């Protein structure tokens, strides 16, 4: 059996140890700058091993799906070595069942920050922020349980009225008959208000949370982003501000917000500062980008699929099912990454101890061997809840019910107010293989 395994890696070209900063320039095909059709045509025919799908190019232009379709058919567990002097090389896992197998095998596939963590690019080794998404058992379980109550069950029901009144306020303030940016005025506005509530953070400074979220996921190489050191400084500033809140709340009666909960729970009250920061970043990013981009994506998809928009207007009862379909279709986090703790076989490929394994949720969500007609956006899709966007296994998204609730309320209130919202042009996308989202999307609500 073992002799039949084809090892697709070019082991000798892998650099030893970790990559060095600044990263060497990226190897790129000469199609950079070409239009979308040309890029897609390239991805459809290029040798598989020539493509580095982690390159922001394929995400900014929303062309990556062409490559993933080919991988699902031709090489479902495939090692990328091009540009390995930047990312050490990684395994692409692209089929539903294989992603499920990795996500549910936490004994073999580790999330540990010290091994690089949970994104394709390793966590900055000079600035490791431990957070429970990037921890293995048993510590992961203990910290997750400390956070869980705020986003589950009764507590969530308590938020419902508040979320609804905020949503109404934001929607009622929107201009009519003129173009505006939906991302800024609605998606960011709603998610930042929600985050401020979760943290017990002053509402008037809510955009600081958005800023820190953007900084923590920013790519230091991109023009306009803070560099590596500047980024560390900004995040340490965040830590300082939150430490002040912590100090106020640790000796006060519990106030039910996340900072108070972390400060009072024996499992988290003695966290070292970097770990406190890590968990802050986790909750800020977790609750921010993902929901924000689902809010934008949903409106975009309805505009692209007018027959679905018509279906929704005719039957407001479809909102809940549509929310799951939006989250599937958007897949706000394109991947999660693991590190193999031992040699193992996946999809006929031999994965070595220490290898990076990237679970492409965005591809699993389009696997037509498991889902019917997955490339279509269908708001009344049967069993729409069965999607990969929240991951599976012990790290499955802890905020999923909150995200669903926010989106459900938003669409209920939109339908009460506006007959239609028009997307005026193609949205500008985030150039990232991790956060799949939008920078801006111009829309108009008819007067």
């Amino acid at each position, binding site marked *: 059996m073992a002799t039949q395994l084809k090892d697709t890696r070019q082991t000798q070209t892998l650099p030893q140890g970790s990559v060095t900063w600044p990263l060497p320039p990226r190897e790129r095909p000469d199609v950079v700058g070409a239009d979308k059709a040309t890029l897609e045509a390239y991805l459809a025919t290029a040798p598989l091993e020539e493509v580095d799908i982690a390159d922001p190019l394929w995400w900014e232009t929303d062309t990556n799906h062409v490559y993933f379709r080919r991988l699902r058919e031709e090489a479902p567990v495939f090692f990328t070595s091009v540009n390995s002097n930047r990312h050490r090389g990684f395994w692409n896992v692209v089929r539903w069942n294989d992603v499920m197998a990795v996500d549910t095998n936490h004994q073999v596939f580790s999330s540990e920050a010290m091994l690089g963590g949970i994104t394709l690019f390793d966590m900055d080794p000079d600035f490791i922020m431990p957070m429970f998404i990037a921890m293995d058992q048993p510590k992961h*379980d203990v910290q997750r349980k400390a956070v869980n109550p705020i986003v589950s069950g009764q507590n969530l029901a308590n938020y419902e009225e508040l979320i609804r009144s905020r949503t109404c306020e934001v929607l009622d303030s929107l201009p009519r008959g003129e173009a505006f940016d939906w991302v800024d005025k609605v998606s960011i506005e709603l998610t930042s208000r929600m985050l401020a509530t979760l943290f017990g953070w002053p509402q008037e400074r809510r955009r600081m949370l958005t800023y820190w979220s953007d900084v923590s996921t920013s790519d230091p190489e991109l023009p306009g982003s803070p560099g590596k050191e500047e980024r560390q400084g900004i995040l340490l500033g965040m830590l300082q501000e939150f430490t002040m809140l912590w100090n106020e709340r640790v000796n006060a009666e519990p106030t039910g917000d996340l900072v108070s909960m972390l400060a009072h729970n024996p499992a988290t009250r003695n966290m070292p500062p970097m770990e406190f920061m890590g968990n802050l970043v986790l909750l800020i990013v977790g609750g921010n980008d993902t929901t924000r981009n689902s809010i934008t994506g949903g409106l975009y998809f309805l505009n692209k699929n007018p027959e679905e928009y018509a279906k929704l207007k005719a039957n407001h009862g479809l909102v809940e099912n549509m929310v799951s379909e939006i989250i599937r279709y958007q897949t706000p986090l394109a991947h999660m990454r693991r590190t193999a703790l031992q040699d193992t076989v996946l999809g006929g490929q031999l994965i070595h101890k220490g290898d990076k394994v990237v679970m492409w949720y965005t591809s699993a969500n389009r696997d037509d061997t498991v889902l019917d007609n997955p490339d279509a956006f269908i708001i009344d899709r049967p069993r729409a809840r*069965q999607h990969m966007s*929240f991951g599976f296994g*012990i790290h*499955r998204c802890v905020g999923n019910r909150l995200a669903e609730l926010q989106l459900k309320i938003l669409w209920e209130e939109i339908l009460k107010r506006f007959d239609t919202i028009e997307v005026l042009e193609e949205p500008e996308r985030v150039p990232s293989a991790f956060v799949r989202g939008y920078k801006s999307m111009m829309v108009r609500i008819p007067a």
Partner: protein
Amino acid sequence: MVKIIYVEHNGARHEVNVPEGENLMEGAVQNNVPGIDGDCGGNAACATCHCYIPEQWAGLTGERSELEDSMIELADTAKPNSRLACQIKASAALDGLEVLMPATQH
């Protein structure tokens, strides 16, 4: 067919016939029993089919696997008799089983 009674947290009862060999999450979802979502399709990987099995049935419904155990342990509503419905298959021995549901699934 095996008779299974799903009991919501508020006491509402749903009596359903589940084909032998089918798991109890499918049994609920296919008969529109509210409160069991089954997001992962029966892989013990989402815990949205969390339920409680009355003590007298425990011996007949099997043991938790490692993954099932981990998923249940993370739920706020976990109890010693918690199970994931997708990990229990309907069989003649389970005819008349009451499956109790938590207030919310997470």
